[in-house]
């Protein structure tokens, strides 16, 4: 009977345990991270009797939690990713909401500003129109500043949020470490029974940690969790927690970095390795969106200011002075790394706004390298090395005060300050350079029908260089200009235009001007003979025909001259007689007779003596030999001129970079009076006045550009002999708004991003970039959230509590309990029956 009741009691206990577990489940149905628990019961070892094995009732072996390790790990990873995307999205949404404000943003300010510029062009003498232009320029500047202000305050806010995220991480790490200890102790004390609720709490903390940062969990044999973040920095090991902390970035004092604190030492972590969670989202937003958007805005502001200043500088203000700076441009930011040991200071200045990239750069110095300066463009990690500074790259000129210590580094942010630093430089409306500084006029006495166009101020080349004399023919690949290979030079059809001549090499270079942007001019080739000394035989007997050749053409007989001057004149005449064939003209000095040979098209001048004639030098002062001309390269491109290749010396050039200047200085003689007078017959004209390189006489081609002293005019029609045109300073030009007209034209000109888009186009690109990023994040974060929800459902389908199920279990265990009670009662009744029988 004892067995009978003990089986009943075991069943009663099992049912009670089931009821307890069910109620525990019901009670914790809404507890985050709770996994439903189940009792595991099994039949007791049966008793062998003569009639076989007799059951001995039931016992509860353990209480388990329903938990799927695989699903949980998956959920953690998805949760980390989802938090990162959500945080990133929340942040970038703030930019997205304001950047394209149709009423107060950049775009309407830009439109208002150009409308005001047009107002000045229409009515240049109106003080009101000029004032409106200044005011709208100011509001353009402030719309840049206020947008930039948002970025700056978001940066501050992100720094703060990084701090609180790091605090959360530390707090979770500490709690996990504590739970590790509790679990180890509980497991040891509980004979290996799992402390289910503690395990749930720890898993919940790991889940919350993953909302802040992606953490890797490795379960140890004693049941504790080791937690790692970043590149394997351990956050929790057993019952010990390590801490992260925020430090001011050594490279950029406006940013905070996350560092790892270990044994009292602060070790920086590579920020890019901190992925996932809130922290990952904040860092990604700051480094991938906030910085680049701020830079792009600064690039736009700098571009507008630089191009506008350039045009203003080509104009003349109401007081008759040349225009100056219209917009102040925000200077590039250079931060010396706080760990630098040297005292060197790097300065950066903008040399060419159109070539800016919007990227930041890192400059490092390593004295062990042959080219110790390494510049890394952070947007695409392009690395360039230099032997020395200053250097110009991407429109930025970098210079350094002294040699830095090895290992020093500098962060250069060319346009970070561009939007903040944009401001209007002038306050006096009359300083707007609305007029063109030169004016062309035809004389009132002109008889012919020739008319002169308005003078326009022209851009001088952005970069130019002149090499030394060419030395050899150019083979393909021996010279590259701006990265484009120049083909082989081919000899021209005339004598002296051999493949090694400046003439031929210039043609080869100009064949690829369309791609390289570089134009070559073969300079005039000049050979200067010396004055003949003494009284050579030629003075009395002359020089026989065919004694020497010029460019392979025999020079005819030369008559005797009475002295050096006379002989020189005779030789020059003989050389000029064949100039149509040789392309070489000669002139003799009137007193010394020294000869000067000139080849205008830059071909070679080859002088050779016939066999048997050896006295050319003493007779004429000319030395036998070949003289090559030099080349001048120029470009109006923003890339400057980069000479490279295997043998640039053939073209008289040396490898190297000639940087492009954004705003070439205005020609010093721009406003000097120059007179163009037509000759009789009026097929040629003469230019006279003040200026360098004014040619005496030029052939007249109707409509052709005439450019000197930095201006260009065209004369068309039929001028008569003695007709006069003048170009001079544009005095008293209060009604001239023609430079303002050119400024207004900048609105529709492709000046930005290397000359590919307008201001509005560049801004539209920025907006579309922010828009696309936001849009993409909106979609991906939603998708990731949905994924988390799906996995949560799957995880919950195993671990979650279903109240209906628990209600059923409740009934089940209640009935089991009742049945067990009945069984005990039955046993009791049987026992009573037995007692009764005994009585």
């Amino acid at each position, binding site marked *: 009977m004892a067995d009978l009741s003990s089986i009943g009691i075991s069943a009663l206990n099992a049912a009670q345990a089931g009821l307890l577990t069910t109620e525990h489940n019901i009670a914790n149905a809404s507890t985050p991270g709770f996994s439903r628990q189940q009792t595991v019961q099994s039949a007791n070892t049966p008793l062998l009797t003569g009639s076989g094995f007799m059951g001995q009732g039931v016992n509860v072996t353990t209480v388990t939690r329903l938990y799927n390790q695989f699903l949980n790990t998956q959920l953690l990873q998805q949760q980390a990713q989802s938090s990162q995307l959500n945080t990133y999205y929340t942040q970038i*949404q703030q930019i997205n909401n304001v950047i394209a404000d149709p009423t107060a943003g950049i775009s309407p300010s830009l439109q208002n500003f150009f409308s005001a510029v047009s107002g000045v062009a229409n009515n240049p003498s109106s003080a009101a129109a000029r004032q409106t232009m200044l005011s709208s320029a100011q509001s353009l500047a402030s719309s840049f500043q206020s947008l930039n202000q948002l970025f700056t305050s978001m940066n501050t806010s992100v720094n703060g949020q990084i701090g609180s995220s790091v605090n959360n991480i530390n707090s979770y790490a500490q709690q996990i470490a504590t739970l590790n200890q509790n679990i180890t102790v509980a497991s040891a004390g509980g004979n290996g029974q799992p402390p289910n609720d503690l395990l749930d709490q720890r898993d919940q903390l790991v889940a919350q940690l993953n909302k802040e940062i992606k953490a890797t969990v490795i379960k140890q044999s004693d049941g504790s969790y080791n937690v790692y973040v970043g590149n394997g920095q351990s956050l929790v090991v057993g019952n010990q927690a390590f801490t992260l902390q925020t430090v001011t970035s050594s490279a950029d004092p406006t940013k905070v970095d996350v560092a790892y604190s270990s044994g009292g030492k602060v070790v920086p972590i590579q920020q890019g390795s901190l992925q996932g969670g809130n922290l990952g989202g904040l860092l990604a937003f700051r480094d991938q969106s906030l910085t680049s958007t701020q830079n792009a805005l600064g690039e736009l502001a700098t571009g507008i200011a630089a191009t506008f200043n350039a045009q203003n500088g080509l104009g003349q203000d109401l007081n008759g002075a040349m225009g100056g700076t219209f917009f102040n441009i925000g200077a590039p930011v250079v931060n010396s790394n706080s760990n630098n040991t040297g005292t060197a200071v790097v300065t950066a200045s903008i040399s060419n706004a159109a070539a800016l990239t919007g990227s930041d750069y890192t400059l490092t110095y390593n004295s062990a390298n042959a080219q110790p300066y390494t510049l890394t463009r952070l947007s695409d990690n392009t690395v360039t090395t230099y032997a020395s500074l200053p250097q110009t790259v991407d429109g930025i000129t970098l210079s350094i005060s002294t040699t830095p210590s090895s290992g020093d580094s500098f962060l250069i942010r060319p346009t970070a300050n561009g939007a903040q630093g944009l401001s209007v430089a002038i306050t006096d409306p009359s300083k707007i350079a609305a007029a063109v500084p030169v004016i062309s006029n035809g004389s009132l006495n002109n008889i012919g029908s020739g008319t002169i166009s*308005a003078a326009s101020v022209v851009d001088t080349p952005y970069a130019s260089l002149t090499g030394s004399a060419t030395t050899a023919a150019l083979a393909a690949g021996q010279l590259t200009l701006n990265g484009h290979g120049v083909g082989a030079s081919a000899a021209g059809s005339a004598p002296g235009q051999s493949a090694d001549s400046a003439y031929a090499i210039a043609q080869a270079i100009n064949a690829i001007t369309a791609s390289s942007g570089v134009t070559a001019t073969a300079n005039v080739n000049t050979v200067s003979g010396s004055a003949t000394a003494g009284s050579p035989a030629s003075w009395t007997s002359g020089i026989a025909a065919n004694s020497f050749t010029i460019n392979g053409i025999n020079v005819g007989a030369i008559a005797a001259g009475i002295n050096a001057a006379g002989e020189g004149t005779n030789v020059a005449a003989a050389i000029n007689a064949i100039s149509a064939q040789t392309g070489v003209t000669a002139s003799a000095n009137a007193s010394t007779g020294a000869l000067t040979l000139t080849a205008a098209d830059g071909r070679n001048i080859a002088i050779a003596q016939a066999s048997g004639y050896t006295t050319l030098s003493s007779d004429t002062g000319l030395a036998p030999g070949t003289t090559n001309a030099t080349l001048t390269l120029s470009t109006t491109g923003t890339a400057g001129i980069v000479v490279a290749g295997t043998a640039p010396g053939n073209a008289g050039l040396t490898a190297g970079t000639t940087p492009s200047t954004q705003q070439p200085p205005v020609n010093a003689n721009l406003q000097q009076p120059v007179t163009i007078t037509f000759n009789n017959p009026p097929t040629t004209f003469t230019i006279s006045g003040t200026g360098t390189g004014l040619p005496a006489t030029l052939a007249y081609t109707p409509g052709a550009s005439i450019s000197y002293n930095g201006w260009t005019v065209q004369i068309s029609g039929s001028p*008569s002999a003695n007709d006069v045109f003048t170009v001079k300073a544009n005095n008293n030009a209060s009604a001239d708004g023609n430079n303002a007209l050119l400024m*207004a034209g900048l609105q529709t000109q492709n000046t930005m991003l290397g000359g590919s888009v307008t201001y*509005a186009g560049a801004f539209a690109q920025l907006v579309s970039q922010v828009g696309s990023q936001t*849009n993409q994040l909106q979609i991906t974060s939603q998708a990731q959230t949905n994924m988390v929800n799906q996995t949560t459902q799957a995880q*919950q389908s195993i671990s979650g509590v279903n109240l*209906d199920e628990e*209600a059923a279990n409740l009934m089940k265990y209640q009935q089991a309990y009742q049945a067990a009670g009945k069984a005990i009662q039955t046993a009791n009744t049987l026992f009573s029956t037995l007692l009764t029988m005994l009585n």
Partner: protein
Amino acid sequence: MRISTNTLYDSNINSMNQQQTNLLHTQLQVSTGLRVMTPADDPAAAAQVIEVSQSNAANTQYATNRNAATTALSMSEGVLQSVTTLIQNIQTTAVNAGDGTLNNSDRQTLATTLQGQLNQLISLANSKDGTGNYLFSGLQGSTQPFVTTASGVQYQGDSGQHLIQVSSSEQMPVNATGSDLFMNVKNGNGSFATAASSTNTGSGIIGQGGLDTPPPTAAQRGNSYTLTFNVSGGVTTYSVSGTDPSGAALPATSLPLPNQPYTSGQSISFNGVQFNIQGAPASGDTFTIVPSANVSLFQTIQNLITTLNTPITAGNPASSAAFTQQLNLASGNLNQGLNQVLTVRAAIGSNLNTLTALQSAGSALGLQYQTTLSQLQDLDYTKALSQLSQQQLGLQAAMQSFKTVSGLSLFNYM
């Protein structure tokens, strides 16, 4: 699959959240009327909106510019209309002066009238626009263009043109310069000017002449000629000499043979020029043919006044001939001057026409931009409103079903 009770609630809440977000988005779209509220709604369209609205703003600016151009051109046109009338009045005066019945004092009266008309012309030429800038001084808005000096009326302005951007591709000059209007007036017939020597004693009068067919060759253009008369034995002949633009005498081979017989009124032509001489030139009288030079309209009128003030000596054929000669010259020059003003007015008129044409093209373009902008960013209300009611319905259904499902519990039956 097992469903946990929490999942039942959570997924319903998630779904309602999502539906409310969508509903709010649609509601905001409806209340702003915009499909693209932030760039994220449609990044490509948002970028296009910026570019198109920039183009639209420029187009609107061109319309404003065209109004400014129209105002400026109309202002000049108004003044030039008065100038035209005035020149025609002066021409009438000049024609009246040729009336043979007038005596010296009558002509002096006409001279006084002319002086008044000259002053009126100078004052018109110095007109200002609405903002106080001189109309005809080129770019020197505050410089008075025409100033009377001892050597006549001088032009102080320049030949600069005030350009206005009237469309994306066209810049239109909106000022006429005083030099073009009044100064660069070719004298004579526009190609060459004829004159009688002041020392002539005969009654010969040379006409204005014109270009012959064929006209002068390039080498002959710019040559000056002198006709010298000789009366010998009652036979009047003339000989021609000439110089090239540099002043060198022309060789006899490029001139008519000497001693050509003269008949009054008969056309004389050589080297592409053609003219006639009337009356009886005396021996030694000379006439010159020189290429047209610029004579200002003011100078022409001033010369005419001087002519009218110069008395004609009765019975002196030379005196009378000189008067007629001067009068002919003046009327030719006035004609040239009128043509010059009319040419400028024609250019202004054609510019005004261009502006009208550009105006309608600009309006059409503006409409096009508006349509594009609307297509890019505006809301399709029909679609949005039907979407709104659909989303509303969805949310209501979710709420109702949630209520039903969450009310089910086994505990209710225990």
